[in-house]
């Protein structure tokens, strides 16, 4: 049994190493001087670490503008999707109405559509309202796939909260709205956190739509800026690209670390007897 456990742990470590290696390599390359990057004998860690690539990446035109654009898009998408998805999820989980099942099935089906298949119709619709080349157009586009998933996730969380809790609050003299704010909202907080992480990652990493809709370099998001980093006349600047990738990855990690402590499961376990 003991040897067994050691074996499983070793296997787990190997899987972890395979998954983590690209991230490690990105990080490591970002700090290596140019000679070490293209050297025939690769080194695991930067032997002569340098911040030059980060300096280059930050001073590449439009880095700060596009980082700001990305932050605007992501904050609006996260905030809007949290509010709308929460209300929609409450409606789906707590109330019976005609067409509810159809709505749920439709929401699952919408997530199945390949994003690329929607490029042409979305572009045509956005162009009609002069939203191509605008951050608002990109935000609206992101909502189309972030919202269904968020509603779906939150609905799962809300269904898990016993109805008796709200009813108890209402028996104690709270209005429906009071029970909603005091009981439902705090209990569904872990769900809101999980949803916001998902929305953040989706909106931050999205590339195709931003690439097609935003053609002005003043108004691009960071992923489009990063893709443009690639080709210079002299070939690819790998150090700069890896430094830029590292910088692009940081906000997601920071956001996750900030909110992950709030993910607690099983808050309502044992809240209702019998």
């Amino acid at each position, binding site marked *: 049994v003991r040897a067994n456990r050691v074996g499983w742990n070793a296997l787990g470590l190997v899987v972890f190493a395979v998954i983590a290696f690209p991230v490690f390599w990105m990080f490591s390359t970002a700090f290596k001087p140019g000679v070490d990057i293209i050297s025939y004998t690769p080194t695991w860690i930067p032997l002569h670490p340098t911040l030059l690539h980060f300096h280059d990446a930050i001073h590449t035109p439009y880095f700060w503008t596009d980082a700001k654009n990305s932050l605007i898009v992501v904050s609006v998408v996260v905030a809007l999707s949290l509010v709308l998805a929460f209300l929609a999820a409450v409606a789906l989980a707590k109330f019976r109405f005609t067409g509810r099942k159809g709505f749920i*099935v439709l929401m699952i089906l919408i997530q199945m559509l390949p994003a*690329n*298949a929607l*490029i*042409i119709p979305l572009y045509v619709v956005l162009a009609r309202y002069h939203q191509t080349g605008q951050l608002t157009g990109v935000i609206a586009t992101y909502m189309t796939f972030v919202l269904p998933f968020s509603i779906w996730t939150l609905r799962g969380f809300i269904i898990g909260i016993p109805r008796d809790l709200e009813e108890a609050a209402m028996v104690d003299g709270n209005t429906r709205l009071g029970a909603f704010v005091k009981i439902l909202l705090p209990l569904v907080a872990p769900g809101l956190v999980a949803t916001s992480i998902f929305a953040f990652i989706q909106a931050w990493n999205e*590339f195709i739509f931003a690439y*097609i809709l935003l053609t002005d370099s003043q108004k691009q998001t960071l992923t489009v800026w990063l893709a443009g980093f690639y*080709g210079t006349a002299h070939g690819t600047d790998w150090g700069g690209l890896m430094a830029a990738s590292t910088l692009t990855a940081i906000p997601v990690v920071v956001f996750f670390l900030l909110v992950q402590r709030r993910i607690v499961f099983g808050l309502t376990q044992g809240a209702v007897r019998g």
Partner: protein
Amino acid sequence: VPRDLLEAASVDGAGPVRGFSDVTVPVLKPILLVLTSLSIIWDFGVFTQPFLLLQSRPNTDYYLMSIYLFEKSIGIHEYGLGSAIAIVMVLIMLVLSFFYVRQMVRLGDVR
């Protein structure tokens, strides 16, 4: 997987392999089906990584349906052809989604 089921199986004389194949796998089957269909559905639409890594290639041997669609519609402005490819993609997706949605309904997720 409830531990009781595995214990009952071993009381009935099932070894670890038998317990895995006759208890663990059947219990997990619904969720495995959901994960498999989701994985197929997501990977079917993959675009960004192959597009960014290979877009400078002159030949088209790396084309996936999503890249083909992109090159035809955005690349050379054949919007009719692009829309047709999009429709075909969605139809293939609908066939795969059928199994996924049916599984979700069976699991009682659509209530």
